[in-house]
């Protein structure tokens, strides 16, 4: 049956094949974590009884902890949190406006909020000198790290 694809209905992201290819090519990085032996025994017990690998349980805990840290930071200083999220998105090679980005998570998966922040709130803060000293410190650190 003849058909036509309407390209306007599609977003600008990579194809599913390309996305999975790039995911396959990136080796999973490692993170060394120090954990209390008592906590580890409980996690082992959960893993044994549930059949879920301990590493999977810990990964999900760490991801959730990082998300909580970022949201917590945003309560103190939204600009700092947005800056960190955007830097992480850049390191991960992901568009900060895309779904699943750290920036997207920070703005509660609401693209309009994210858009509003970068289009209005952030430039306003910048113009009015409303960015904190901590923001400047972190921005300098990122700038040094990015060379």
């Amino acid at each position, binding site marked *: 049956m003849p058909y036509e694809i309407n390209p306007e209905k599609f977003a600008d992201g990579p194809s599913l094949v390309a996305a999975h290819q790039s995911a396959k090519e990136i080796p*999973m990085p490692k993170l060394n974590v120090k954990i209390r032996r008592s906590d580890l*025994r*409980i996690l082992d*017990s959960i893993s044994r009884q549930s059949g879920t690998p301990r590493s999977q349980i810990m990964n999900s805990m760490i*991801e959730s902890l*990082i998300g909580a840290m970022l949201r917590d930071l945003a309560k103190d200083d939204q600009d700092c949190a947005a800056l960190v999220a955007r830097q992480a998105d850049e390191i991960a090679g992901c568009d900060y406006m895309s779904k699943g980005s750290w920036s997207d998570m920070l703005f509660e998966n609401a693209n309009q909020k994210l858009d509003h922040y970068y289009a209005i709130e952030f430039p306003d803060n910048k113009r009015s000198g409303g960015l904190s000293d901590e923001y400047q410190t972190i921005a300098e650190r990122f700038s040094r790290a990015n060379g």
Partner: protein
Amino acid sequence: MNKKHTSELYASLRASGVESNSSDFETLSLRISPRTAAMVQALNVAFWQPEHKAVLTRFTDGISRQLAESLLDSADNEPLIAEEISQGVQPGSALDLLVEAGAIEYKSMGIGGIRAGFTEK
């Protein structure tokens, strides 16, 4: 007037990380997603430098805290607690936090009961 900041990350801009060398800890090497690794890298540069070793212990307390909160989600978690408590309560661990929260009560002859703070299913 200075705004009062409460976030752990914000505080770490001024505080230095404390590394514990106790044998009560174990170091695990976890394979994490590139997305999580990117955020750890960003946090490392933003807040935790230059003591890169400090990253090791950055999640230690958070894991204990989160495990304690998750255990409190259901009284059905009691067997997990009962199994571990026979080993004693490690300072700062999830069990220790449960004792602090009153979810585990010591009685004169030892651990008396696991009661308060649980959500009944």
